[in-house]
């Protein structure tokens, strides 16, 4: 698990530990991540595998700084080429790089109840630096690719079905994508056909140089889109390697998935 130091390295996680201190439950400390070390290159799709409770989502949330870090560093290379340690940035700096540099797409769409579909996705584009026209154009294109047709564009997101919400969420996450995208089971509610469409879009990301760290609970998705697998168990990295080497082991249950 040595760190690659190639020019394309975008993220270097070093000796990352995470504990929750539960002050109101007799002050107990629960350590959920232990000494994580890995790196990701631009244009690389890395899948996190492991049973629930292995710490996959926790790791994504720490990288997005929704969870604080207990110890360790998260080095990230900005678009300017400058390396920063995310654990040392101010809150305002984190707000400034969220969306533009690092994005997070969860399983669930979280939107203001009265936002229309097209407005939501367009605003996501604007927040990543597109001008209004480009944002709207790209929003339309992305929605169409995900088979969210025109009749739904002006509809409030609150009335959409589960699968539609998830596709709108993917559209908002993938429009003018940030340089590092964290995906936490973004296709869990999709039928096979829409799942294929979403995976195609996710595959396009890496071709455009985006680094992706993703959690998918189905191995076929991992096989289709990922280059490398990091397998986790009880908050630790237990295996790391190319998808074509590790996936057969995952399928046979030699590594938990």
């Amino acid at each position, binding site marked *: 698990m040595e760190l690659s130091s190639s020019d394309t390295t975008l993220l270097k996680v070093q000796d990352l530990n995470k504990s929750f201190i539960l002050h*109101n439950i007799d002050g107990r400390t629960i350590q959920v991540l232990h000494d994580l070390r890995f790196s990701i290159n631009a244009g690389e799709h890395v899948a996190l595998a492991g049973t629930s409770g292995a710490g996959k989502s926790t790791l994504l949330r720490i990288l997005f700084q*929704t969870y604080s870090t207990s110890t360790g560093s998260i080095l990230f290379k900005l678009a300017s080429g400058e390396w920063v340690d995310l654990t040392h940035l101010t809150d305002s*700096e984190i707000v400034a790089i969220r969306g533009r540099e690092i994005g997070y797409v969860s399983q669930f769409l979280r939107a203001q109840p009265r936002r229309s579909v097209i407005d939501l996705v367009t605003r996501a584009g604007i927040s990543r630096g597109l001008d209004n026209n480009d944002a709207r154009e790209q929003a339309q294109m992305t929605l169409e690719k995900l088979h969210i047709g025109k009749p739904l564009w002006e509809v409030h997101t609150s009335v959409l079905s589960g699968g539609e919400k998830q596709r709108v969420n993917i559209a908002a996450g993938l429009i003018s994508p940030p340089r590092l995208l964290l995906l936490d089971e973004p296709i869990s509610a999709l039928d096979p056909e829409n799942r294929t469409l979403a995976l195609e879009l996710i595959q396009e990301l890496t071709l455009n140089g985006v680094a992706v760290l993703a959690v998918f609970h189905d191995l076929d998705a991992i096989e289709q889109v990922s280059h490398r697998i990091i397998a986790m168990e009880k908050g630790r990295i237990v295996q790391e390697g190319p998808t074509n080497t590790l996936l057969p082991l995952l399928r046979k249950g030699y590594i938990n998935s």
Partner: protein
Amino acid sequence: MTGIFVPEPVVQVRNLGKVYGPFSDETISRTGSSFGSARDAVTGSIVAAWDISFDVQPGEALGIVGESGSGKSTVLRCIAGDVEATTGDIRLANVDEGKVNILDFDASRRRRLRIDQLSVVYQDPAEGLSLGITAGGNIADPLTAAGWRNYSAIRTRAKELLTRTEVPIDRIDDLVRTFSGGMRQRVQIARALANNPGVILLDEPTTGLDASVASGVLDLIRSLLEELNIAAIVVSHDFRVIEMLTERCLVMHHGRIVENTLTDQLLEDPQHPYSQKLIAAART
């Protein structure tokens, strides 16, 4: 310092404090979150807010959360000038380029800031509006204070603001008293925006409104902040309000800031024992 671009703050608050009654260093050390009270048991003085420091960037809303009596409204009212701060330094980017502490201003200069620099939207519309005059009249008020004299220009601006805040134009000449709670709040927002202030202070802006009306008002506020690039400070005990409007927030307890963090981090991974209790209570 990193090369990450963070806009210059519109509001800078440093070491703001408000104490009711006489106080000394001992009073300060005998109060606060770790002491479990804002009241000094020896002198009876109340340290309503102490050592409050933060910045707010343009287009951003900063949340202040905490239970009743935590001092969050005191902070807002000290900034607004409704309450005289005991100590501190507050700078506004648009007032003398941020080179002066507005707490040093005399009362009349302080009041003038409220016309076009610092607007307040109160929980109770009766505090921010005259219910016995029309919607148009309420909006005309800050405009005339700012020197507007032309009747039709004022009327046009009032209509523009009511449209922007989604109040039916044909109600412009109706007394605000005849408006629903949600509509009164929209008129209050329209009035607050009349002279394009750099900063807007929101004190429980949707408390008392039913859920669907509240979400409409919050959505409006969020859009206005983004489009007009205004800085906002939002005080609320309702985490849905804070979650919908803010990216960063402060948690106050017994007059002190106990946590200053990203809003999603506060909700998902609160650090301070009091924050953990507050979040746990909000979730049940």
